[in-house]
């Protein structure tokens, strides 16, 4: 809490929630990359098709969406109680619960826990929360080597790259790029490696299996934390996550506080929604669940780190809080016409696409991500695709209303509103609009940002008379 009693945003200087440049500037770079455009177009079109087909099979998809939405709204309304219940149940089952107010605290807790084990290497399950807080960088600074074990996340890590999609972090890479990264960075790789996908997967498997068998600490995220049983759940497609969750002695899970769900039975809804909306699968391939510590089976030391890092601030906004309902399926990314063309890096945060455009600015405070709520044409495809019915377009509009505005835009908007509320003045402005033909179709001489229109689009020719002049004269 800050001195005013308002919950704090995610702190600056740590984590990956802020980009180096504004969205329009970063997008310009991405749009000029033909390889990226091709990869994204192919990948998003494929996932969209697959997901659409399996969703169409369910007669009760809309009811499931409503149920998911209602469960999340209930959870947010009861968050403090549910988190304390989760803590109590995890503790009773032999786990240790830690509360982290922000990224710095979470990184410190995890680093200290690993240091206590005396280990210098950890295996990691793909996790958005640990990407958000830049845990890998914090561990490396403390002399601990994190090894990502999700294939795509490994490609990102070996490529000294950043994830560009919530579910498919290396969506911006194709197989020949992956081959080059493996040849350059993977310890013990066969120099004759080709870009054949099974061969690439085989190389990663050989490397990862050795790592799994020789590492004694794992770090994971969590998809769900069930309050009434103290059970944590991770869903994944490769089985590498299951290795991390079962083989080591110590397991440390970093979970955003919004990932709590009230009861075991609620998974019935979410485990139907998530795989169909995200990967287009009917059932998730590897769903791992564990409750505290089981003697003689799996990790014997379990730590749960509950992460706030700005989430309480999001919860305080009654319109914006819906962003916390997200189950990280990435359906909104896959249907977004903006994401499909710019990719994830343009958003500057680990949370890209439409959900990122509403989540990142709320976690950091709008000033630090002021261009993100504008990174959308408000086409509404994300709202239709969201399995828990987050009204992303309305939240984008809500955040735009809070965003700092450029001074010239503010003046132009005020002048437009003033004119529009005075019909006589409005009519005079309509007649003046005919002067726009002086600019010609190409709009040469238009000031920024209007020259952005004229760069690729002709200006409409002004009509000889306005509609109202015609109406009066008929």
């Amino acid at each position, binding site marked *: 809490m800050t001195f005013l009693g308002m919950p704090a945003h995610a702190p600056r200087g740590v984590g990956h929630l802020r980009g180096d440049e504004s969205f329009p500037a970063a*997008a310009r770079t991405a749009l000029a990359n033909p390889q990226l455009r091709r990869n994204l177009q192919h990948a998003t079109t494929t996932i969209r098709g697959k997901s659409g087909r399996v969703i169409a099979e369910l007669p009760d998809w809309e009811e499931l969406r409503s149920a998911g939405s209602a469960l999340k709204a209930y959870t947010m309304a009861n968050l403090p109680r549910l988190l304390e219940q989760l803590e109590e149940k995890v503790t009773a089952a032999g786990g240790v619960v830690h509360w982290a107010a922000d990224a710095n605290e979470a990184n410190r807790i995890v680093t200290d826990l690993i240091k206590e084990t005396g280990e210098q290497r950890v295996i990691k399950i793909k996790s958005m929360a640990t990407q958000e807080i830049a845990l890998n960088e914090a561990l490396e600074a403390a002399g601990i080597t994190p090894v990502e074990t999700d294939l795509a996340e490994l490609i990102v890590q070996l490529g000294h790259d950043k994830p560009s999609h919530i579910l498919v972090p290396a969506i911006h890479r194709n197989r020949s790029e992956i081959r080059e990264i493996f040849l350059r960075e993977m310890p013990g790789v066969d120099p004759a490696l080709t870009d054949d996908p099974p061969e690439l997967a085989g190389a990663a498997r050989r490397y990862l299996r050795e790592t799994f068998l020789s590492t004694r600490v794992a770090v994971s995220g969590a998809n769900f934390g069930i309050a009434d049983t103290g059970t944590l759940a991770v869903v994944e497609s490769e089985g590498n996550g299951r290795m991390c969750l079962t083989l080591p002695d110590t397991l440390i899970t970093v979970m955003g506080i919004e990932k709590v769900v009230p009861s075991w039975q609620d998974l019935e809804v979410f485990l139907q929604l998530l795989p169909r909306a995200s990967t287009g699968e009917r059932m998730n391939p590897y769903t791992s669940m564990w409750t505290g510590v089981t003697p003689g089976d799996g990790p014997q030391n379990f730590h749960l780190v509950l992460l706030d890092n700005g989430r309480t601030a999001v919860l305080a906004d009654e319109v914006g809080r819906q962003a916390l309902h997200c189950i990280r399926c990435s359906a909104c990314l896959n249907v977004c016409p903006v994401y499909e*063309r710019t990719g994830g890096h343009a958003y500057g945060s680990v949370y890209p696409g439409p959900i990122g455009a509403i989540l990142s600015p709320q976690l950091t405070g709008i000033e630090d991500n002021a261009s993100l709520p504008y990174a959308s044409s408000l086409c509404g*495809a994300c709202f239709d695709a969201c399995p828990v019915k987050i009204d992303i377009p309305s939240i984008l*509009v809500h955040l*735009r209303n809070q965003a700092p505005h450029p001074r010239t835009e503010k003046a132009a*908007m005020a002048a*437009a509103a003033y004119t529009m509320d005075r019909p006589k003045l409005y009519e005079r402005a309509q007649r003046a609009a005919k002067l726009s033909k002086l600019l010609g179709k190409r709009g040469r001489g238009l000031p920024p940002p209007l020259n952005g229109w004229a760069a*690729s689009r002709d200006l*409409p020719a002004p009509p000889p008379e306005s509609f109202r002049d015609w109406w009066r004269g008929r």
Partner: protein
Amino acid sequence: MRIALFATCLADTMFPAAAKATVQLLERLGHEVVFPLEQTCCGQMHVNTGYQDQALPLVRRYVRTFEACDVVVAPSGSCVGSIRHQHAMVARQAGEVGLASRAEAVAGRTYELSELLVDVLEVEDVGAYYPHRVTYHPTCHSLRVLRVGDKPLRLLRQVRGLDLVELPAAEQCCGFGGTFAVKNADTSTAMLADKMRHVLDTGADVCTAGDASCLMHIGGGLARLRTGVRTVHLAEILASTEAS
């Protein structure tokens, strides 16, 4: 029926043909059209750009202008979408509870053109004649905010002489998005490029839609590339007859 026309500021100022066509079409179908001159703009640009307080007088103006009318029609899915889904919210945010409920009432009587024709006037064959190869872009707000579904297509299918060709990836945004087109001009242009490619793939002479704004965008791109393909508002097609 006595129908009030909300022309929208864009059609009133830059695309009067769409508003004129709406009048001619409704009069041909035997209805009386009125045009209250106090009307200006619905305020959507202000709301969607983050200036809700400045949109408030425009919401108030819209409500005052059309409150006494039984039915209001606008040749724009986007403006009707804003009236229906944003006006009451803007009033409520400003603490004007009374205005919010009045706005809701007027919004409930405000229709986009294809909704008015198919749902209220219950007509699909409006007696139009338009001998051209035409493709239809559904526009995001007609499709996903108003849910007009296939109403515009049902109207177009009844137009004599019209060769209707399906637009590939029709439901993808053209990249306009109001001030998005200037704030994110590069991304907007990338989206427009794909939309234009699909329009050209159909071999149509005319691309139509229910929104002058999206048509201004697509048409601006098609003209810049000298494609020879025109954009024409749905109302203009429906208003055309053999006599015209």
